[in-house]
């Protein structure tokens, strides 16, 4: 099936790969290796002096109720963010796919939020949902009579960070879903219609299965995004509060490392975070990928 290109020299492919490998080595493998080493030590912040503690950093993390809370918070946050961002992305893509006139305009508009940095996205939503002066907060209070207060209410705070995180990622999902939709051959849909399948059945039986590679790819990307890139959103909005309700793992890594100057524990937390994401991705490929249909 697959095409294979063969090089005559065995060195040439390595040579061609070298720039990319070098970048990976320098900016991923080396720091990751450092984190794994540091996780086994207590680290003096100024001198960088290491004190061997074995697995103590990990032990203490799992004994700490704050850390266990952060794991739970992260699971809820990532699942909600990925689900919301993917649903909205798909929804918009379906709408734009049906539009005939002005498609480029809609498409361009829907892509914009992706260009916004997470910290700015956080600041925007903070502004909209600030209990004292936010426009949306005002609408919630006046319109729904809801005592909106993300500074004290854990659920409100979670909604705030999930909204900001998802909003930013919708654009990304939209682009891929739209491309996926447009790649579906018209002929298949028309054939299904001729066979008597209604719009609902066509979406469920034809379009969705053909969209599954895109959806699968996006699931992986969205989860990775939610785990790592959302630091800026939490940092500019809730700072992990109230009562730790939005303290996601990546924020805690920063807080313990840079505010608390506990670099050993911070490194151990990075390692755990890395392990979680790696295993999630492996699981996704092993189990979910089987349901994905790649062939067009």
């Amino acid at each position, binding site marked *: 099936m697959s095409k294979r290109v063969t090089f005559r020299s065995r060195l040439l492919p390595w040579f061609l790969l070298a720039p990319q490998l070098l970048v990976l080595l320098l900016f991923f493998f080396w720091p990751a290796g450092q984190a794994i080493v540091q996780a086994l030590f*207590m*680290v*003096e*912040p*100024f*001198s*960088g002096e290491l*004190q061997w*503690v074995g697995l103590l950093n990990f032990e*203490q993390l799992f004994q*700490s*109720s*704050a850390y266990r809370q952060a794991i739970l918070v992260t699971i809820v946050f990532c699942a909600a963010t990925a689900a919301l961002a993917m649903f909205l992305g798909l929804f918009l893509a379906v709408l734009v796919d049906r539009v005939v006139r002005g498609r480029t305009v809609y498409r361009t508009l829907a892509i914009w939020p992706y260009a916004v940095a997470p*910290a700015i996205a956080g*600041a925007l939503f*903070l502004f909209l949902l*600030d*209990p*004292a002066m936010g426009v949306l907060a005002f609408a919630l209070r006046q319109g729904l009579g809801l005592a909106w207060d993300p*500074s*004290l*209410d*854990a659920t409100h*705070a979670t909604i705030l960070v999930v909204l900001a995180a998802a909003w930013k990622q919708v654009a990304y999902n939209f682009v891929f879903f739209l491309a996926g939709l447009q790649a579906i051959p018209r002929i298949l849909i028309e054939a299904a219609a001729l066979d008597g399948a209604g719009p609902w059945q066509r979406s469920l039986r034809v379009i969705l299965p053909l969209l599954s590679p895109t959806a699968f790819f996006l699931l992986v990307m969205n989860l990775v995004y939610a785990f790592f890139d959302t630091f800026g959103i939490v940092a*500019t*909005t*809730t*700072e*992990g*509060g*109230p*009562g*730790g309700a939005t303290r996601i793992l990546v924020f805690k890594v920063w*807080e*313990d490392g*840079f*505010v*608390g*100057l*506990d670099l*050993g*524990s911070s490194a151990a937390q990075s390692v755990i975070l890395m392990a979680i994401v790696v295993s999630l991705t492996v699981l996704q490929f092993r189990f979910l990928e089987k349901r994905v249909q790649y062939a067009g």
Partner: protein
Amino acid sequence: MRLGRWLFAGVVSGGLALAPGATARADRLVLDWWHALSGELGAALEEVARRFNASQHRFELKPVNKGNYVATLNAAIAAWRAKEHPLVLMNNESGVLTMMLSGAIVPVHDVLDKYKVEVRIQDYLRPVVQTYTDRQGRLLAMPFNSSTPILFYNKDILDTAGIAAPPKTWQEMEEQIRTIKAKGAADCGYSFAAGPWQELENYSVWHDIPVATRRNGFDGLDAVLVYNKTRFVQHIERLKRWVDEGLATFGAAAAQTWASAARTNFVEGRCAFWIDSTAWHSTVEAGAKMKWGASFLPHEADIRPNHSMIGGAALYLFKGFSDAHYEGAAAFFRFLTDPRVQLDWHKATGYVPITVAAWDLAKKEGYYASHATRGIAVEQLLMGEERENSRTIRLGNYENVRKALTDQLELVWAGKKGVKEALDQAVEDGNAILRRFEQQNKGKI
């Protein structure tokens, strides 16, 4: 906000570079100073540096803003590891132990002794100096900006309620808030953010109640938090009761952006009382439309208060520079303790002057006749005497220890946890942080 600060820093440094005479001359030794003040405070700091540079011709002090305290400290740590650190680093009061045990600093007293800058501790505001002295009473860092919380009150609301004077005790404060509510003078009594500095540390020091054992950590790294067993528990229970009865309004301490809620509620005239740093004076002066006043922190009716504790920062000297650099630093510190410099700093920023001489000068010049409430903080720091639990709070990785308390208190205000249960958890989490710090720094003091 961050962007604003960078822009501001850029404009200031750009402006300085263009200003005639401000460029470093070849014959002047440049002294780098990394600091954490921005906005108006940053401008006041730049002014201090400019005046020092104008006062002599050998040294050129060069202040650089590196963001807030956390960012500045992290920048300095990275710079120290890369051997590109500044001579002078500004770090806040919660980081004393970190700096003391860093192995990267020259104790300020060494430099002051060597270059014959006489610092007599009794000439200073005691709680200011004590925050930065070692166990022998010698200065580790030069106190720079210091403040302390005081009680601000809305005079209009008190007048409407027929209350002649602000409360002296927490018990009086409760009665007054009840009167205010009964008379319909205001809906909001006490506006608070429950910052650990205001509600835990100053409450405890003011009443000579321990926050931790070993004189709040001053005597050793093995100190254990005990605030879940002191009068502080009743204080938080009272606040919680006030919240439930509508006598107090919580103003969010979670995010930097929301932390202003308690302040805004007071400054905009909605609340009768508010406790926060005396350094907020200029904000209140600029923003308040109502008549307002300030007074000493309330105390428990059955306890004679001692003195409050400071917040703020001090200047540390890094190792690795030539004698001439340290001579420059000594000259700067001598300049800094000049009463005139201190008084102008006090006026420009609302921080307290660090010497008694500057306080006397302010009184002599009649500064407090026009700015009566700005002297309260100084008086409050000069009160009382040296007591077991009033010296300072010196605990490791203290920012995170504070955070453990803030986390739990938010659960209390939200009604999700009982006071005792929450404080027990905060102490447990805080002690875990302290034990890690102790292990990491075993044998250093």
